[in-house]
């Protein structure tokens, strides 16, 4: 009788271990077909690819001949040709799913259509990540997610099922109900955003549920860069007594594009047989080398209905070669996962402030439940304030020490810039189930 090979460490050994020269040829072969497909069928790409001959894309250097796609172009197309714009190759009659971006940025969400194959592919990308993290058919996976039109963990849910794990949809529940289900159903794998993983852990403490000594072995994170911020990741692992694995993707792709392998190299493998990723200088648009920070540009081979070709994601990444990990895969990595957004850097009195860098410092301290960064200009000078909500066990003496040390570390990391650290009352700061928004810039727009 046939049986599933569960001791195989790779979901797809053929491509995960493929020689890089072959991988490059495979990507180019797929790219030529995606270009031909999109140019023939999508009104948008018919225009933008008019001067591109797919058959003449023979090397990676030829990518520069293909125009970028920006979110603004996609949005403009959607507004000019509602409801889906001119990117799709077909109408909704041939799609089976409609999902949107999260809308957490305050912008109008993008809408994307998927066919049956697209949707199965979306789950497949999660399978690479789940299997690579050690998830197997005997696992019980709990998905702490609201199951709305935002794509979120839909693909992970389907990926768990595809692997054969027992899959528990944790939608339409309070946090307390979710914690009880995780406990009662013996979940061994939990999926959530990093912020929500901490909230679940805090709720478990209040309910007297011991997560650390419970059955959860893996926490699969997505939706925020924090899954690769070492301090946040370590905090989650401590609170859950489990290993945390970062993943990242976007609705525009319909799924994830990178994942932390079991070896925990401090970064994420790019799923290079199904995606072609470039890292560019956001100012010049030119591809940059290993180890340099730049903007991630994504081409998806898997989404047929809404092709995505050279999409400027605005994600900041640092690409490093596959040799940076001992996982055995030949796929390159993004060191530190997604380390920020091109547009999330704030300039405060001449000093660059990245929300991710602030989070890395704040999460290095015990006793912090939540935080918010607020930038304002009360007079002629910028001010930056950190609101910290400590746990209820932090008394006045401990708070004085905590706030002083956090303030000192923030100043050290920001060229002496003084953050005003203020205590927030218990429950004052917002909690997030999806993408956390912890920076507010109240300065007048220039």
């Amino acid at each position, binding site marked *: 009788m046939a049986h599933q090979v569960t001791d195989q460490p790779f979901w*797809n050994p*053929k*491509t995960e271990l493929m020689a890089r020269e*072959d991988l490059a*040829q*495979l990507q180019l*072969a*797929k790219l030529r*077909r995606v270009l*031909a*497909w999109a140019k*023939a069928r999508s009104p948008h790409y018919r225009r933008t690819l008019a001067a591109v001959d797919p058959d003449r894309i023979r090397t990676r250097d030829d990518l520069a001949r293909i125009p970028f796609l920006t979110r603004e172009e996609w949005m403009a197309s959607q507004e000019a040709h509602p409801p889906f714009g001119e990117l799709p*190759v*077909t109408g909704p009659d*041939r799609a089976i799913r409609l999902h949107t971006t999260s809308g957490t940025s305050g912008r109008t969400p993008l809408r994307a259509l998927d*066919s*049956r*194959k697209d*949707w*199965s*592919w979306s789950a*497949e990308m999660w399978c690479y990540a789940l299997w690579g993290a050690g998830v197997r058919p005997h696992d019980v996976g709990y998905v702490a997610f609201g199951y709305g039109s935002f794509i979120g963990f839909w693909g992970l849910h389907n990926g768990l099922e*595809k692997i054969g794990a027992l899959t528990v949809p944790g939608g339409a529940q309070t946090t307390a109900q979710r914690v009880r289900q995780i406990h009662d159903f013996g979940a061994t794998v939990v999926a959530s955003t990093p912020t929500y993983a901490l909230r679940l852990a805090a709720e478990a403490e209040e309910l007297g549920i011991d997560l650390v000594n419970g059955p959860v072995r893996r926490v699969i994170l997505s939706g925020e860069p924090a899954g690769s911020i070492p301090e946040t990741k370590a905090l989650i692992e401590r609170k859950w007594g489990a290993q945390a694995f970062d993943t990242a993707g976007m609705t525009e792709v319909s799924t994830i594009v990178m994942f932390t392998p079991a070896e925990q190299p401090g970064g994420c493998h790019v799923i290079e*047989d*199904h995606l072609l990723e470039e890292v560019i200088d956001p100012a010049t648009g030119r591809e940059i080398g290993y180890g340099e920070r730049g903007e991630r540009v994504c081409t998806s*081979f*898997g989404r*047929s*209905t809404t092709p995505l070709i050279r999409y400027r994601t605005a994600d900041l990444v640092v690409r490093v070669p596959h040799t940076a990990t001992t996982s055995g895969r030949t796929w390159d990595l993004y060191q530190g996962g997604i380390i920020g957004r091109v547009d999330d850097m704030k300039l405060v009195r001449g000093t660059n402030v990245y929300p991710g860098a602030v989070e890395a410092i704040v999460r290095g301290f015990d006793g912090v439940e939540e935080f918010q960064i607020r930038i304002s200009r009360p007079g002629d000078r910028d001010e930056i304030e950190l609101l910290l909500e400590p746990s209820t066990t932090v008394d006045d003496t401990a708070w004085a020490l905590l706030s002083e040390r956090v303030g000192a570390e923030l100043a050290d990391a920001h060229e002496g810039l003084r953050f005003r650290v203020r205590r927030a009352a218990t429950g004052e700061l917002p909690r997030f189930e999806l993408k956390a928004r912890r920076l507010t810039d109240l300065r007048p727009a220039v």
Partner: protein
Amino acid sequence: MTTTAATTPAHAPRTTPGGAPGDLLGAPLDDAERALLEIYDRIVAALRRDDLPPCVAANLRAALAPVAVAVTDLGLRFEHLTDLDV
């Protein structure tokens, strides 16, 4: 019942130097890959029939999607199937 004929651009499978069917890089297929590709081709062919009752057509479409993903995973074939509603 009428199904739509596929109009996906034809991409002839690569062949090995010896003329046998190969994967997208021209490498020869092993037994498991040949078996997978045969299943894929047979479901595609079945879906091109116009005499399938809805229960058969719908389930074949649902079956073809993950098979097509596996075929692409292994780099055996790469084509989109929206014309078959897959």
